[in-house]
């Protein structure tokens, strides 16, 4: 999941950069920039979620409980 989320973060940036290079109209550019940021938000959310189970496992380790 982490690799996918990092790919989404980078992909969102590429969408933004592609919009800047390929499009001319300010409104079209703006729409694609927003779309790129939304993709990045998805990636960030996934990345954040991917750390929740790992932390629970770590806690169990450090408190000596069963894994």
């Amino acid at each position, binding site marked *: 999941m982490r690799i996918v989320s*990092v790919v989404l*973060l*980078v*992909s*969102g*940036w*590429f969408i*933004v950069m592609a919009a*800047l*290079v390929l499009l*001319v109209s*300010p*409104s079209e*550019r*703006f729409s694609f*920039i*927003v779309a*790129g*940021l939304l993709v*990045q938000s998805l*990636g*960030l959310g996934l*990345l*954040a*979620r991917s*750390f*929740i189970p*790992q*932390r*629970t496992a*770590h*806690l169990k380790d*450090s*408190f000596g409980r069963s894994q």
Partner: protein
Amino acid sequence: MNFVVSLICLLLVPFSFAGLALIQQGLGRSRSAAHAMLGGICALSVSAIAFVLIGSGWAGYPGGPNHSFLAGGITWNWLGAAPRWGHAATDDGLYASLVLCLQLLSVALTAMIPVSTGNDRWRLRSICASSALLACGVFPLFAHWLWGGGWLSQLQNTLGLPPLLDVGGAGTIHVVGGLSALCIAWLLGPRRGKYDDGMAAAIPGHNIVLVLFGCVLALVGWTGLNMAASLLFHDALPQELLLVFLNALLCASAGCLAAVATTRLRYRKVDASLSANGWVAGLVAGSAACGLISPGAAIFTGLVAGALMTFVVEALELKLFVDDPAGSIAVHAVAGVWGLLACGFFAKSHAAHLAQLSSQMVGVATLLGVMLPLIYLTNALLNKIMPYRVDDDGDLQGMDIRELGAGAYPEFVLHADDLIPR
């Protein structure tokens, strides 16, 4: 550009180090207070040396030598090629020297931000290694793009967009530092006892008085940084610096009051630590625009930053299980992103608001799409080589005893944890 005024402004910046260090150690546990303070100073020292030796050449300065490549019919200026080992300070003239000093102070501030996030569990040697990595590779890259004449500062010439506005380093310093803090929190995991039984336990800061004093010191340092950056990167006149100071104070005040009101409404009592964070969040958000917005817009920017910060701190702690003792992620990363966007809404620019907002969003997308993966991957790699988290004994003893051999307050037993046999 006025040399004397710039120099005086730069000399004020170290107050922000003092302020940030006091906030960091005050919001942590007493058993790791000395370690938190020393960690901040070590991060500052290592990053300053590493930046001068290696990073400064890549960061460069506007109009200086650079590495560029051609793609899509556009020349992308992506890395500086200024002399390293600090030679830019002597070889490339007065302007290059002042920019080098400003970047040096900025990288030190950036490196201090994640230290508070790793409070009570981040090893000192790992703090130093991570700071060196930040100062050599991560910070210079974005600093060049924005402050060194790189592609983000040349959007007008290359892509027909107005240049990205980030006068005082909301993106360059605070979002980069805040994203580093987020990665460190992910890699370290929470403090022992933070999420016992799956519930978040409150671990209050041990000295709120120092935290609040740190806020006042931070204002002085931030003002100096904002003024110096306005002079060096936006050709502000000395008489315009008054507005920079006014906006910084208004942003901080509005941020603090927003946090006071929000915590009073939500928890029935005002939370002093969150209110202090609201003050810093206001300073961070306001540093994107500095003197480019009106005082009214500065108040609005600070209000949103302060209120937003309280919700983000709670979401990170309760929903995402991110243990960030000093709230650095919300204060620096989130408020910094809001500051960049607010600059697009309110900045007095010749460009249309939609175009300016687009530029600001390109900056945010670059921070999330390039800098965050870069910071995460480099720190994860370093964590494999040199484990960041202290061992279980250190978790029990506290970092002062474990790594420094003595507590910060040896005459007092301040916490039940201190009675644990060692």
